[in-house]
């Protein structure tokens, strides 16, 4: 598989992307009858919101996420990421493979502060 498609870690932002000229516009925004269908249930973002975001200049999954909060809710994108990717790729007219994937981060499940802060003393040099 081509190098573009492998996201290498090792610090942030150290991918091997290809230049993307944002002044190349994806055509006009044409309203569609299913624009009001929810895509991100947790943050109540619709298909139309995502399509409009692309026309506002948001060409990556990361940008759309920060712009609209898709994938920032409780499930952290578990339910909607694939749907968002499909919509964005379609709106941009690119294959899904060239779109970025949001880096996963801890915690894998929502965790209360009082629990996360309650570290059983299994570390050396506890400084609680």
């Amino acid at each position, binding site marked *: 598989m081509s190098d573009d498609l492998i996201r290498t870690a*090792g*610090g*942030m*932002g150290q*991918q091997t*992307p*290809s*230049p*993307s*000229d*944002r*002044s*190349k516009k*994806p055509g006009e925004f044409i309203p569609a009858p299913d624009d009001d269908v929810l895509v991100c249930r947790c943050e109540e973002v619709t298909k139309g919101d995502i399509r409009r975001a692309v026309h*506002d*200049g*948001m*060409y*990556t999954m*990361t*940008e759309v996420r*920060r*712009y609209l*909060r898709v994938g*920032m*809710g*409780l499930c*952290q994108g578990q339910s909607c990421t694939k749907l968002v990717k499909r919509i964005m790729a379609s709106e*941009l*007219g*690119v294959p899904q493979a*060239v779109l*970025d994937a949001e880096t996963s*981060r*801890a*915690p894998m499940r*929502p*965790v*209360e*502060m*009082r629990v*996360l*802060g309650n*570290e059983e003393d299994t*570390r050396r040099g506890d*400084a*609680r």
Partner: protein
Amino acid sequence: MTERTSEGIDTLAGMADFVIVGAGVIGCATAYNLALRGHSVIVLEKDESIGNGGSSRNGGGVRQSGRDARELPLAMYAVENIWPGLSDELGADVEYVKRGNLRLGKTEHHLEILQGLARTGVEHGLDMRMLDANEVREMNPFLSDEVIGASWCPTDGHANPLRTTLAFYRRARELGVRFISGVQVTGVRKLHGRACQVATTTGLYEGDGVILAAGLGTRTLAASVGIDVPMHGLLIEALVTEMEPTMFPQMLGTADADFYGHQTAHGSFVFGGDSGLEEANGYAGGVPTSSVTAPAICRSIMKYVPRLADAKIVRTWSGWEDESADGVPVISSIDEVPGLTIACAFTGHGFGISPIVGRLVAELACGEETTLDVSAFRYDRFHAWA
């Protein structure tokens, strides 16, 4: 949208009045201001995404209090003149809230520190004072009994850094700024003695002037024309909770500086903080978040805001602070390299002043008189101490 120039690295890939390296909030705000003045601008960003550096990782503070005296005029100007109207100006809600900043103390020593900050603020015309234990709890009933006082700056606040950065980007793009992401910039080149070319692995970009606003990456690029910006990177962390019922509007910080943060328009809380081990450990690559930092931040927070003990963390992340050698940024024309302007080393507090910095850098690049005096941020101020 993806463009792979096969012509090679020495081909001219674009020309504009100005070429900016870095599409963080500084680069985007600068591009916007230049576009307002009718200039053509190309912005080159190494990452796939706009604003993926510190601009999207910081705590969203828009504060004047606690700043170095040199930065205060910039922060005060931005808070008084730009932030309140910024959402309208950019046509996007940047979630700016101007409901004050409480910096909390639990010990007498903390209060001394806070009094020092308040003094500095007041000396520079900032509305700031100390609150005692009763006053602070009246202002924010969610604070723990351990808090014995706070510094209070009523004109401080917070905003959404992700939306602000993308709002500057969107507006600048609408005004005709050409943003190219995923570009590997390798250096700055001079033509006939003037810095006006930016070299990348996929071609050259040329303008009347070059602006470097690339965070830590600025150092290597400036070095290509013989300029050094003394700064180092510090990786620090932040976390965000799920949506909570509305609790308080103030930005919070502590005398100990062990955490800072606020409740967002969405209802979630965003906090930054550290474990105390960052400087010692350094970051040598690998997983950018540490297993001990978020727990430490949580314990710090819970001591001040006990109610948040039950708030659920949904995500943690880290970001690079570009720490200036003397704690304040470089915002400067580079006299010895005509055509070059630099804006970097914001040391973790660039977001709050970004709207005014964007204007100042545009003014510097255009050779105009600057709205504020920026001589304290000159690139050549760093001297040996003896």
